[in-house]
């Protein structure tokens, strides 16, 4: 393989252990492909990059326009989602031939070389949540959940460096700049629902219909997961990417917080993959990193940024630019000082 690929994930400091697990599992099976983390946060001396299993890019380095605005506009989770197209496009602009974007809660279980090879023939590769009409119980419910959240999963997005995919990323960036929110009644679900447009907007877009790529709570009932001699298979083929969307290692009996009734011990062979993931998270310092502070979560006077602050700020639209960095509280022109007194407590 002569083309140069890079894998990337996005995380804030409290989720650093998840990014470590993703990176380590990726390296184990794909030692020839570099892996980088875009920190949607400030490092502030909490960890040493030399000891980490990834190279590091700061969110300040990826050419994000109006960074001070967008990191306040969104909650930590929304922010990490919103910058996905920016991160991918930045790496392509740096000259990589293809970018493998993996969301932070991922376990790579096999080589991704076949995906890289396919990416040389396509502009963009996406994985749909469902590969067949689900037949097991709750089929209708799950289909509707997918229709509201997005047909394609935003956790695995593979993009080749081609004009048509760069045009799509420019479009996706514009959408996630303002509309990376969860408002299903208006057709929005973070960065993900916008991907529904991709196959019709991007010539050469490819839908990956491989049951072993991007296994998650949404398709587990249709996946026969087996572990033999340490190798994980899905429906008889290699299981390459397993995703732990909504998995809480402090509730290891549950698959995901999105379906609290679904239990890990009912997933057959997948149960041991969940156990393995849980072990890796603990070894990667889950308990420690989850206590690390999110740098954009407080005003510079120490007051916590709440959803009420963010929503007030979003309401201002482009006018919000006049405040400069909304986290800076000093001065008569600050966003803080423009707030109603009720929103200016515990400063």
């Amino acid at each position, binding site marked *: 393989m002569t083309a140069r690929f890079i894998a990337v994930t996005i995380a804030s400091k409290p989720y650093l252990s998840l990014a470590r697990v993703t990176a380590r599992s990726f390296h184990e099976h794909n030692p020839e492909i570099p892996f980088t983390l875009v920190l949607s946060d400030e490092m502030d001396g909490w960890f040493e990059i030399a000891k980490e299993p990834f190279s590091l890019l700061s969110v300040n380095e990826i050419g994000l326009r109006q960074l001070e605005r967008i990191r306040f506009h969104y909650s930590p989770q929304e922010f990490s989602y919103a910058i996905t197209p920016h991160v991918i496009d930045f790496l392509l602009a740096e000259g990589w031939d293809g970018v493998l974007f993996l969301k932070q809660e991922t376990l790579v279980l096999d080589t991704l070389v076949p995906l890289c090879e396919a990416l040389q023939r396509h502009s963009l590769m996406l994985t*749909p*949540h*469902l*590969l*067949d*009409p689900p037949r097991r119980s709750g089929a*209708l419910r799950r*289909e*509707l*959940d*997918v*229709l*509201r959240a997005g*047909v*394609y999963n935003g956790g695995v997005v593979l993009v080749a460096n081609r004009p048509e995919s760069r*045009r*799509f990323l420019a*479009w996706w960036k514009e*959408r996630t700049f*303002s*509309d990376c929110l969860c408002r*299903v*009644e*208006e*057709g*929005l679900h973070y960065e993900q*629902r*916008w991907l*529904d*447009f991709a*196959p*019709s*907007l991007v*010539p050469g877009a490819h*839908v990956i*219909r491989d049951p072993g790529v991007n296994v998650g709570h949404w398709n587990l009932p249709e996946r026969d997961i087996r572990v033999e001699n340490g190798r994980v298979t899905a429906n008889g083929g290699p299981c390459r990417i397993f995703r732990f969307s909504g998995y809480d290692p402090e509730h290891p009996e549950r698959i995901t917080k999105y379906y609290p009734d679904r239990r890990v011990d009912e997933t057959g062979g997948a149960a041991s993959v969940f156990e393995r993931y849980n072990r890796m998270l603990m070894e990667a310092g889950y308990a420690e990193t989850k206590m690390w502070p999110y740098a954009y979560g407080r005003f510079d006077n120490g007051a916590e940024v709440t959803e009420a602050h963010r929503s007030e700020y979003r309401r201002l639209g482009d006018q919000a630019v006049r405040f400069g960095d909304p986290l800076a509280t000093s001065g008569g022109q600050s966003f803080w000082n423009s707030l109603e007194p009720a929103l200016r407590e515990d400063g």
Partner: protein
Amino acid sequence: MSRLAIGTIVARNYLAHARVLAHSLRRHHPEIPFYVLFADATDSERDGGDEPFQLLSIADLDLDDVRSLLFRYECKPALIALKPTLLRHLLGAGYPSVLLLDADMLVQRSIQEALDHVSSHALTLSPHVGMAPTNADRLARERLLLMAGIYNGGFVGASDRPETHRFLEWWETRLSRHCDDNVREGFHFDQRWLDLAPGFIDDLHILRDPGINVAYWNLPDLELQLDDDRLLVNGQTCRLFHFSGFDPDDPGKASRYAPDLTTEELGPAAVVFRQYRQMLKDAGHDQTKDAPWPWDRFVNGVEIAPSARQAFRAMGDESRRFSDPFDVRRRSFYRLLNGQASSWARCRRALRARVPRLRRTPETQKPPEP
């Protein structure tokens, strides 16, 4: 037998649209059979006559419980819900490929290239926009598409393959119960279900030809030119125009779904709307446009109130007790609604539980939460 058939579905109020589409197809594709599922045709009309298409009636379809479907929905969603059924019917009749079109379309030039795609793929869909919208209200328009569906339900091509049949059976099942506008829940008539097709179908083709399925949702992005009487969109020949939401009695508006878009601002396309309006008139639209939908009434002529439809749907599988919901005899749904079926305690409980205040304020209640 032809390798491909085309079909559409109408009630009498759209009969003129079907005739216009039939004439335009005959002109450009005389060899292709065109079937119209004329849902409320009378017995004498069913025997054929001089329509420019092959007429199918609901009785021709292989559909269990068709009367329940017609009771559950009003006219428009009922016709939409029959799309997968018609596709299955025509595939079952032996056509290797079938293209389903909305009746309010006009073939302006040969659509052979699109038909070739339909013939060579398991499923062929037409996206509302094949390139990113560029005008000022692009975000608002895209959000409407996220709510309404990426692919247009007015152009669905299907070929006789196992994966297509699996898909059509699933789609038919979904539309039998979930063919409404319910964005909050995640569906919008037939269309949002189609968004799942690229996951379900391996051999899916997305038609990105700007000259196919030209309509109000993509017209604002297209560069329009008139070359003699040929409309060009982005330099390509406009082949298949879709007059979705166009009301010939309100001809200044391109579509009732985009009230701010006037036909005049569409420049060269305005003439297409004018011509289409005239074609509809020539095809007798004024005589049929107000035709009542016969399935809006119980067999005794009493109109079916929206609340009655909602109550029937809210009963879920309980509604299967009523083999013919239009019936008014003993043990009928009609009697139950009117409080004359006290022995049907279970149904009454189901009704009361899911549709509170049904009988007190039948016209004003909100639909039940699914």
